């Protein structure tokens, strides 16, 4: 329990600090702070439907968070989850409308296609980093653009999978491939359960298997790992391949559970939210569940403040940016903690 508190304490501090600065930004831009924060809370957790909205948005973010953190644990930066997510989504949709398979097996096949497509898009920068020394945070980002343009072309007019006339999207996937919804009238699907399951698998892999130990050793000190007989090259490639697969799975889940077809530019930035989620979780797979719910809550809450007309939805994106900013400087929180007792002591002497 104590270890939990130590891990969560600074993050809670950072979130509080970010909400505080967010309130200042809200006030400075002329919006009502109480109205905004009320709508933010109601929109995120107000009733079952809103909670379902939060969890729906949290689902793909959980996968991209896991994607970011598994690479991060191996000392690598996967900035390209957005593109991996798109590729995974497209190939899952493709498997969804192409194959004729029984229920249960069909979605599993779709997930495997999505994961495989994402894995390829992670393997390439992994291989380039390990064998050629190419900066993975540049190459993952560059390949992300390539993937997004590629999937856009596939469903654009003139592209091979332009499925409907009125929009750039594929045809619907078969009903056998769809994830059942969990709540009537809401988009929340089995995807969230798959996500939590995968989070536990990633946790087990990282902290309970020799392979995970090797990945983390490479992340902590590649030279020492190499000296200890760990194949650094192979582990780097593996980490980014797994990162790609996780982001691809996220895209697949989003298609099977939420959209039921591939739509051009469907992601509002879930790949980016994953970077935030992974960092806020302090790269812990189970923490990522909480971090993804926080990100999902900010998105759902943001939409609610927009609907209620009290402020633009993107205020939530500002708060998200601030949270990450305060989370990534643990020294900052430590600095504040040092300030507080000192002030208290000063108060004592005055009395």
């Amino acid at each position, binding site marked *: 329990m104590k270890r939990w508190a130590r891990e969560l304490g600074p993050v809670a501090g950072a979130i509080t600090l970010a909400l505080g600065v967010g309130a200042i930004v809200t006030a400075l831009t002329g919006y009502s702070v109480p109205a905004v924060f009320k709508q933010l809370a109601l929109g995120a957790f107000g009733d079952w439907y809103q909670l379902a909205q939060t969890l729906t948005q949290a689902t793909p973010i959980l996968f991209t968070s896991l994607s970011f953190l598994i690479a991060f644990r191996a000392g690598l930066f996967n900035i390209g989850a957005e593109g991996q997510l798109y590729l995974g989504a497209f190939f899952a949709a493709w498997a969804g409308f192409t194959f004729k398979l029984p229920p249960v097996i069909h979605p599993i096949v779709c997930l495997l296609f999505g994961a495989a497509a994402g894995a390829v898009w992670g393997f390439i920068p992994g291989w380039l980093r390990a064998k050629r020394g190419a900066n993975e945070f*540049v*190459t993952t980002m560059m*390949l992300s653009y390539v993937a997004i343009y590629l999937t856009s072309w596939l469903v654009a007019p003139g592209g091979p999978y332009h499925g409907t006339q009125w929009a750039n999207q594929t045809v619907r996937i078969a009903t056998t491939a769809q994830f059942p919804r969990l709540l009537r009238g809401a988009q929340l699907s089995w995807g969230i359960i798959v996500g939590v399951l995968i989070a536990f698998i990633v946790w087990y892999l990282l902290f309970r298997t020799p392979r995970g130990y090797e990945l983390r050793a490479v992340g902590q000190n590649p030279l020492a790992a190499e000296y200890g007989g760990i194949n650094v090259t192979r582990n780097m490639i593996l980490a980014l391949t797994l990162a790609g697969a996780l982001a691809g799975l996220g895209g697949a889940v989003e298609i099977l559970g939420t959209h039921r077809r591939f739509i051009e530019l469907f992601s509002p930035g879930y790949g980016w939210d994953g970077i935030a989620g992974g960092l806020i979780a302090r790269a812990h797979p189970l923490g990522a569940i909480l971090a993804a719910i926080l990100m999902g809550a900010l998105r759902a809450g943001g939409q609610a403040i927009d609907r209620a007309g009290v402020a633009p939805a993107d205020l939530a994106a500002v708060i998200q*940016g601030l949270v990450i900013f305060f989370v990534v400087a643990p020294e900052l929180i430590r600095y504040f903690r040092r300030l507080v007792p000192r002030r208290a002591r000063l108060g004592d002497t005055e009395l």
Partner: protein
Amino acid sequence: MEILNFNLFISALRLATPIALVALGETYSERAGVINVGVEGIALAGALSCAIVAYFSGSPALALIAAVAVGAALGALHAIWTVYLRADQVVSGTAINLLVMGFALFLTRVIWGWRGTSPSAPTMNAWILVGVGLFLIALSQVYIFHTPWGLRLRVVGEHPRAADTAGINVYRTRLFYTVLNGALCGLAGAFLFNNLGRFTDGMVGGRGFIGIAAMVVGNYRPLPALAAAYLFGFVDALQMRLQDYIPSQFSLMLPYILTVIVLAGFLGKAQVPKALGKPYIKEQG
């Protein structure tokens, strides 16, 4: 082919400018030991502040100053986070990127009511900024390698302990060059705004990251980095002309694919500053 004409080489120079400015800024900060992957976001912030000030004041010159100032401020933020609070440099830079993206969407909505875009605003001739960029790059080549200040900069990135012993303030040097990096990225953003005449949230479009790639390929030297940036600018100019011949999605991919190929082909030979990415702790004996 009619697309390979003189105009192509001219517009390549124009499109190379923001990439070259980012590469120059990153050369300074990485020479001092500070990686800043937030250059993408800082350039976006520069473009946004340029658009806001140009829109309300009507003065492109004032807008330019604002862009550089905002860039410098974000550079300072990165320096405080990484040099003084010892946050991971890539993580802090990534946080800057996400923070600016959030603010860009929010502020455009607040100010103009449009998500992620501005109306057109007064601009200056972007060629002036191309000239300024070329001048700064030439000047920096001399500054970094042929002046005592340049030597101090390099030693801080190579061997901060030795620099400290010789009386150079490592923290302040890193702060200064990270701020300079931010200012140059702000200038890159100002160029992008003046080039297009308005702000859009996708206008940097990975050019910050491509700028980092240009710096790496240029081996942490301003003039070779300019050559690399010109290559990227050339492909960018070429892809616009290719859109008549192939689906636009494929031509738009070209600069990004080129970046990956070039990074894969050139790296490994680069002489990375030895203390790059490592926070300096003065107390350690």
